[in-house]
């Protein structure tokens, strides 16, 4: 499986996302913000960082890059996309996910290992977890408080689109403790904590985050097998 990792000017965790892809047994493919080209990848990760310095608003400028012009329709058509931290912010700015990420309640940047509860284990990025599972993953952001109007929040909850939630009090003031959400049909997932920094206890607090990457690999293998079976039936 080929998973694209986009590098915007100011992307920082792109190497780490690529490493996580490798650990999960897939091939990372580097995508460049200025190219209108997804290089025929099977999924895309928008990594963490400070794209365009996060000047103006996090993700606001990256949203207009040429690569996003390709990604937005592809995501709408079902391509699995994972936005981590800055990537989540970009997905919200691009309206692939509802709501926005706002300044942390304490107004300071926070690096902390946080416990998350999996709320939706049916997306391509979380299929390997089970609902209710607890994960220990680093959070590191200054504008990580998820915000949306009440109607949107209600709708997200009703549709089971809260993918991960902070266990206990949200460290950044996120509405309803939301750490990550998904699109209507689940293929686009965004979250503030960094699963790619929890793939090996040597360099992270746990290996709990690896499941995001192995999940998508499994989902892809499953889909490929299904296509294969279909093709076989046709033959």
């Amino acid at each position: 499986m080929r998973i694209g990792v986009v590098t915007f000017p100011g992307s920082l965790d792109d190497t780490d996302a690529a490493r996580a892809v490798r650990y999960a047994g897939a091939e990372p493919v580097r995508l460049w913000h200025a190219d209108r080209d997804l290089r025929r990848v099977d999924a895309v990760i928008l990594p963490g960082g400070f794209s365009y310095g996060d000047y103006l608003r996090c993700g606001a400028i990256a949203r207009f890059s040429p690569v996003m012009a390709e990604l937005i329709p592809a995501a709408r058509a079902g391509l699995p996309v994972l936005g981590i931290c800055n990537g989540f912010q970009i997905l919200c700015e691009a309206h692939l996910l509802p709501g926005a990420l706002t300044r942390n309640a304490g107004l300071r940047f926070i690096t902390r290992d946080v416990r998350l509860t999996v709320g939706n284990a049916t997306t391509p990025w979380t299929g390997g977890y089970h609902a209710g599972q607890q994960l220990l993953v680093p959070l590191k952001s200054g504008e990580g408080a998820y915000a949306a109007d009440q109607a949107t929040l209600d709708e997200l909850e009703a549709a089971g689109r809260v993918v991960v939630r902070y266990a206990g009090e949200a460290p950044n003031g996120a509405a309803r403790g939301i750490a990550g959400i998904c699109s209507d049909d689940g293929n686009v997932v965004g979250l503030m904590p960094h699963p790619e920094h929890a793939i090996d206890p040597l360099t992270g607090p746990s290996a709990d985050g690896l499941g995001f990457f192995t999940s998508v690999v499994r989902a892809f293998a499953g889909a490929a097998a299904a296509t294969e079976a279909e093709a076989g039936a046709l033959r």
Partner: protein
Amino acid sequence: MATVIVDVMLKPEIHDPQGEAVLGASHRLGFGNVTAVRQGKRFELEIDGPADGAALAAVEELARELLANPVIEEFSLHPAD
């Protein structure tokens, strides 16, 4: 050459921790009669040519597209005086 100001504020229903922090600090500094604070952004844009209707319409589009996030923010604009 003209200057256009774009003010961007969080929508009233969106929580504004910065404004709250300023309010708290104001009270600690003894400015008790400040009762609420909202903090937003102010952009000063210099444009080629006069700030006529067409120019303001263009800035408005820029504000809607880029300067403000309609999900959480609202904006207003006016030529600088």
